[in-house]
């Protein structure tokens, strides 16, 4: 073969390889840059957060003025934990609240257990029809427990159950939770704060979710906080720290929050009804609701606030086996893509201000492009270097962006947590998490990106459904 032709082909291949590496590195740098900005905002948000009165003071101050809250707890096949969960919810510290458990067509003994344990009987209830949901079969209540209402409906999924709860609630605010999560007893008192401080502006607020794996639960409350021993659960603690303490806190401060976790969020009912409630046919219904609220308020030209508050804590059990975790991550990825595509006209659209530029910019960079480019980098950059099409500095730059900066962001989040919140009381726990922050970059991170690619694939194939989340139940004393 003509050597000139070979040289030209090699030069062309090298240029192509460098272009690929450049795209991968630039995307990684943009992501890391965005994370660093978020870290700075999160640090600023924590340093300037309004002073938090003690629980006793909060109670004294809010006892007369706190608006009523309906706590909506959708339940599907939760016969093992539902009674304890409801008891824990009824024991929340808040002056004026009701608990609405929505039995979403459970096929087990969820409803009979509730009826039997709380002495419920069938009652009538005049409910709104503002948002759509599957038909309601009946209402159950007891005059001995006026705060509790159980709604029995045909199965329609979590979003559908929450919509039924929204129609049934008679408070201006509702708090959407997972029935199997555990709320700190003063979580409502703390998360309601924006609705008391800025009643005309606040339309939604989310709080921190923490992982309960490894913790001890007593009478529906976390009695002892421990780190889990399972590696996957440990890694998820770091992921949740980054997601809540860094990303959501920062995006909240920027007024560009695009998601309030389905496990714990407080909303102004009227605004949610105006946007049609939770959407059916998406697995990212919690994210989509927040985006719809942004769009609605921006379209109306009204000033509003969507807050993220670091203090209120909801404990949840995270998956600790690979199969369940992979399904969850693929589903989250699919949910983010569904939301992005459904509201693509908002993306980078100046008409939607910060939410269009920053909020959607984050989804585009981290959720849409992120996993594709990163996996492309893992495969192509070492391969092209091995074949001699890329020089060593390109490979080193890729490794630095992927691993060094990744470890830096995780450790910085941990430092921020320790300076501002100090939730991990033992040095040994901090050391373990610091180790996890390093180790997760080698193996777990790549696996996580693979699951996200599966989510991409499911999205392209328009696959529906949630998959099964197998819960082991909290460790009770």
């Amino acid at each position, binding site marked *: 073969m003509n050597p000139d032709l070979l040289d030209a082909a090699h030069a062309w291949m090298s240029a192509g390889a460098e272009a690929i590496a450049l795209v991968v590195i630039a995307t990684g740098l943009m992501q890391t840059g965005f994370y660093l900005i978020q870290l700075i905002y999160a640090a600023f948000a924590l340093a300037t957060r309004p*002073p938090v009165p003690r629980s006793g003071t909060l109670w004294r101050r809010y006892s*007369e003025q706190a608006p009523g809250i309906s706590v909506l707890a959708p339940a599907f096949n939760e016969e093992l934990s539902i009674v304890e969960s409801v008891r824990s919810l009824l024991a929340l510290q808040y002056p004026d609240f009701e608990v609405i458990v929505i039995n979403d067509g459970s096929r087990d003994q969820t409803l009979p257990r509730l009826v039997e344990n709380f002495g419920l009987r069938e009652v009538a209830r005049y409910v709104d029809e503002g948002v759509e949901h599957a038909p309601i079969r009946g209402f159950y209540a007891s005059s001995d427990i006026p705060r509790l209402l159980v709604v029995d409906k045909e199965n329609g999924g979590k979003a559908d159950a929450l919509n039924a709860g929204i129609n049934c609630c008679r408070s201006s605010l509702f708090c959407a939770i997972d029935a199997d999560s555990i709320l700190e007893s003063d979580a409502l008192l703390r998360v309601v704060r924006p609705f008391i*401080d800025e009643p005309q502006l606040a339309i939604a607020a989310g709080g921190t979710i923490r992982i309960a794996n490894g913790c001890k639960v007593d009478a529906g409350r976390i009695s002892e906080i421990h780190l889990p021993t399972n590696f996957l659960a440990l890694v998820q603690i770091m992921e949740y720290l980054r997601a809540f303490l860094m990303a959501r806190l920062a995006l909240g401060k920027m007024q560009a929050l695009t998601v309030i976790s389905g496990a714990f969020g407080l909303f102004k009912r009227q605004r949610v009804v105006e946007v049609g409630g939770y959407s059916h046919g998406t697995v990212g219904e919690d994210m989509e609701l927040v985006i719809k609220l942004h769009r609605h308020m921006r379209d109306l030209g009204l000033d509003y606030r969507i807050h993220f508050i670091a203090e209120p804590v909801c404990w949840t059990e995270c998956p600790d086996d690979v199969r369940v975790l992979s399904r969850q991550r693929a589903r989250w990825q699919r949910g983010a893509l569904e939301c992005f595509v459904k509201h693509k006209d908002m993306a980078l659209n100046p008409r939607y201000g910060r939410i269009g530029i920053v909020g959607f910019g984050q989804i585009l960079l981290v959720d849409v492009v992120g996993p594709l480019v990163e996996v492309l980098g893992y495969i192509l950059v070492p391969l092209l270097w091995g074949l001699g099409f890329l020089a060593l500095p390109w490979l080193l730059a890729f490794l630095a962006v992927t691993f060094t900066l990744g470890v830096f962001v995780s450790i910085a989040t941990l430092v921020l947590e320790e300076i501002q919140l100090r939730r991990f009381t033992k040095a040994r726990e901090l050391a373990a998490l610091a180790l996890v922050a390093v180790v997760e970059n080698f193996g777990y991170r790549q696996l996580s990106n693979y699951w996200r690619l599966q989510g991409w694939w499911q999205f392209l194939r328009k696959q529906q459904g949630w998959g099964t989340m197998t819960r082991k139940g909290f460790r009770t004393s």
Partner: protein
Amino acid sequence: MERARGVEAQVATRLTIELAELMRGSDRARMLAAADALGVPELLKKQTCSRSAQDRLFALETLALFANYTDVVERALEDRSPDIRLGAALALASREDGPNPIDIVRKLRIGEVENSLLLVSLMSDLAERDPVAVHAMLFEDSVPEPAKVAIIDALADRGHTHAPLLASIAKEGASDPELRPRILRALGRTAHPSGAAAIEAGLASEDWRVRTAAAEAAGRTALSQLAGKLGMLLSDGQWWVRFRSGEALLRLGKPGLGVLQRAAEGPEGHARKAAIALLAERAAA
């Protein structure tokens, strides 16, 4: 008693507010005297200058328990943080030696910076201490409307003495449509018949939030002469209006029940559904 130092002083300071909330009367006075002797107020006074808003708020709230530190807490009304300013105002509100209510309103910059629902608690405490001054603020042009609405809410909670005044304000109507429902609800809480005309006008409002608040007030005030109008609102396009109207009709007793029973047998879909469900709810209760 010897002055506490170091960690002991910190613990004594933390304990002071916790114990003060559990105690009343002479026990509380003795506990505060002991804390004074340990030097707790001096430590708190230093903390009022802390860079941390959290520490400043704690110090102010605790310091307000002691007799001779009102001036220190009052200075916090000028604090850079609105949360601290409001915290100081709430701590000072019930103190006999606290600043004038109108000075507090001005320093908080109500309506401009401060819009908290806790303003109602503040006004309630101020009205307890100085009802004349709080009453007078309603007629003061310089007092912003959100402050006046907080005053109205607070006065409504203090019983029906202020009902005629609230009725006249409700009749004139607030310029801010967001505030009118609050005025009507406050009027409803007084349950005084002098509000009837304002409530009736509210039932005919174009704003559904005003209609909802007026229906609620009509029920609480037991305005049975409005039963017919409430019955018509059972067909309203807004669920909240239908629900509050039905609830009000149930409160009205016999005349209201009559209207609901007719609606339950009537042809209008919304009204029939609301009436049947609310009557069934009542029967079950």
